[in-house]
C-alpha cells in the first residue's frame, strides 16, 4: 500500500515526539519537519533520523504543497490561525494539536469517523483527549446532566504555552465535555504538580448520573472505552474500577443522587518525552491515530 505523505509544522517538543511516532507508522509517510529556527534541536534531530527538515517555515511547505496530503500543526493557536487558511487553499488537510479550535473537535473513540473528510480537525487538549472518551462512555448509556474533570500534570511537562494560557485549557476542555462527550454541562480543572520525581499524568472524571442509571452498563461502557483509547495510547489506564458514590449533589445541571468517578493515569511511551509526560504523549498518539484514519479514508477513496 502506498503511504500517505505528511508534514509536521513546528519543531518543538510536541513536533519532535510526533516525529518519533510517525516514523513507525505503516500508513503515513513523514516527508518533512518544518520549523523557523535554524538552531532548532527538533530540526537537528529530524535530520539525524533521516527526515527532510527546514527552518524556512510554512512558505517552504506551501511551495511544494502537492507533495503532501496532511499537515500536523504543532505550533501555537495563534500561528495555526495564520496558517490554516493557507493550508486549505493549497489543498492540505490539517490536524491541529494547538487549542485554536478552528475545525471540529475530534476524540478518536467518540467521533473520528464523522470527521474523516474534514479539511481541519482539532485535538482539543491533553485533558480533553484523556477524559472526553469517559464522559462519552457514560453518556451513551446514562443521562449525564454534568461532567467534571480534574487533570493533573507534572510541572515539568507543562511548557510556557500551557502555562501562559491556562484559561484556554480549562475552557476548551470544558466545552469538549459537552460538545463531544455529551454531558449537559461541563467543567474542567487543571493542576500542576511540581513533585520530584515527576508524577504521571492523572485525570479524574466525575459524571453526575441521572435517575435510573444502570451501574453495570455504566461501568462496562467505561471499561470498553478505556480499552479503545489504550489501543493507541498504550499507557492509558484506570487506576481502579469505576467508583459509584451516592449522595445529594447540586450540580449546575441539576441535583442528582449519584456520581461515577473514573480515576485515570496516563504513562507516556517515552518516545521523546520522558514517560511521566503522559499529557504530551496522549496528544501526539491521538494525532497519529487521527492522521492514520484520515489517510486510510483517502487511500480507500
Amino acid at each position: 500500500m502506498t503511504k500517505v505523505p505528511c508534514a509536521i509544522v513546528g519543531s518543538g517538543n510536541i513536533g519532535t515526539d510526533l516525529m518519533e511516532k510517525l516514523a513507525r507508522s505503516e500508513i503515513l509517510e513523514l516527508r518533512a519537519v518544518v520549523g523557523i529556527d535554524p538552531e532548532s534541536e527538533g530540526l537537528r534531530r529530524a535530520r539525524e533520523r533521516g527526515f527532510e527538515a527546514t527552518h524556512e517555515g510554512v512558505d517552504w511547505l506551501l511551495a511544494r504543497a502537492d507533495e503532501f496530503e496532511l499537515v500536523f500543526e504543532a505550533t501555537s493557536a495563534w500561528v495555526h490561525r495564520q496558517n490554516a487558511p493557507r493550508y486549505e487553499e493549497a489543498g492540505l488537510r490539517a490536524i491541529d494539536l494547538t487549542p485554536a479550535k478552528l475545525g471540529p473537535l475530534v476524540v478518536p473513540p467518540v467521533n473520528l469517523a464523522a470527521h474523516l473528510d474534514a479539511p481541519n480537525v482539532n485535538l482539543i487538549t491533553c485533558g480533553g483527549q484523556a477524559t472526553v472518551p469517559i464522559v462519552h462512555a457514560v453518556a451513551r448509556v446514562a443521562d449525564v446532566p454534568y461532567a467534571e474533570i480534574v487533570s493533573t500534570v507534572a510541572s515539568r511537562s507543562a511548557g510556557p504555552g500551557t502555562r501562559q494560557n491556562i484559561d484556554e485549557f480549562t475552557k476548551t476542555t470544558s466545552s469538549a465535555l459537552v460538545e463531544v462527550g455529551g454531558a449537559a454541562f461541563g467543567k474542567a480543572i487543571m493542576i500542576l504538580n511540581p513533585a520530584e520525581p515527576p508524577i504521571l499524568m492523572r485525570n479524574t472524571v466525575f459524571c453526575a448520573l441521572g435517575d435510573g442509571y444502570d451501574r453495570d452498563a455504566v461501568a462496562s461502557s467505561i471499561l470498553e472505552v478505556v480499552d479503545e483509547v489504550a489501543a493507541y495510547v498504550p499507557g492509558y489506564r484506570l487506576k481502579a474500577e469505576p467508583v459509584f458514590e451516592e449522595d445529594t449533589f447540586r450540580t449546575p445541571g441539576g441535583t442528582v443522587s449519584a456520581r461515577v468517578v473514573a480515576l485515570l493515569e496516563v504513562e507516556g511511551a517515552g518516545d521523546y518525552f520522558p514517560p511521566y509526560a503522559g499529557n504530551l504523549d496522549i496528544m501526539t498518539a491521538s494525532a497519529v491515530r487521527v492522521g492514520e484514519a484520515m489517510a486510510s479514508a483517502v487511500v480507500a477513496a
Partner: protein
Amino acid sequence: MSEPRFRLTDSTLRDGSHAIAHRFTEDEVRRVVAALDAAGVPVIEVSHGDGLGGSSFNYGFSATDEMDLLRVAVETATQAKIAILMLPGIGIREDLRRAREIGASVARIATHCTEADISAQHIRLAKELGMEAVGFLMMAHMISPAELLEQAKLMESYGADCVYVVDSAGAMTIDDARRRVATLKAGLSCEVGIHAHNNLSLAVANSLGALEEGVDQVDGCTTGLGAGAGNCPTEILVAACERSGIPTGVDPLAVMDAAEEVVRPIKPIQGVIDRDGLLLGYAGVYGSFLLHSKRAAERYGVDAKDILLELGRRKVVGGQEDMIIDVAVELQRRAAEAQAAG
C-alpha cells in the same frame, strides 16, 4: 487611633467557607460583613473556599452562587474593600470580570508556590480592570525562602501590588514564617503579606513574627473559621497586636463581638485542632483536604489519618482533592487484600 502598622484582610467568608462545606447564605454574609466593616476591618474576602469557580464535585458545590454572596458583601460594606480569591486552572478570567462588575476591588490570585507563572494572565487582567492585585503563593513551606522569592518576583513582574507567603498546610514554625517574609521584604519592591493556618497552634505567633520582619498585609479569619485546623483568628490577632503595641486600625472589642455574636453561631463542621487537623500541619498537607478526607474515610471505611499521611507521601498540592478518593479506594482495597490473606 494610630496609623495601622499593617493591613488586615479577613477571609472568614472565603477560607471559612471550607469549614462549612461552602454553604454560606446571603444573610450570613450580610451580617458578617456588617460586623467586620463596623469594627474597621479594611478588606473582606468573599469567594468559594477554592476561589472563584471553585463550586464543583472536586471541592464541593456552593449552596449559594458566590456572585450573589459577593453582591451582598459589596452592598453591605461601607468602608471595607471586598476581595476575591481565584486559582488559575480552577477559575477563569470571565469569573474575575464578573466579580469586578459586581464591585470587588482586590483580586488575590493564588498558585502553588512553584507555579507563579500561571498567574500572569490573571494578575494582568486584574490591573487592567483597575483592581488591586495580590499574588498568593500557597504551600509556601515546601520551598526555601530564596526559591519563594524567585516566584514572588514573577508575580511582582506581572503587576502584583503585594505577594503573600501562604502557609496553606499550617506547617510553618515561627522561624519558617519569619525567614520567608524577611527574604521577600528584602527582595521585592511591592508589599508582602502573610496568611497563616493554625494546625501547629502558631498562626498568631507566625503573624506576629512576620510583623517583626515588616510584613505589610496579614490575613485572619474571625474565630479562626477556615480550612484544615482553621486560620489565624482575626479577633485574637487584633488583641495580640494591640497588646504588643502594634496598631491595627481595627477596634478590638468590636471584632471580638463580631466573633462571638455573628461568626460563632455559624457552626463549623470542624473547629478545633483535632488529630487530623494537627496531622495536616505535621505532614504538610493542604488544609482544605481535611473535611473531604474525613468524608471519604467514612464512605470507604478507612482511617482519615491514613489518607492524610498517604497524601503527604504523594506530595499532592492544593486542588488535588480528587486524589483523596484515589487514596481511599486504594486503602480499602489493601485492607480487603490483607483480610483475605490473613
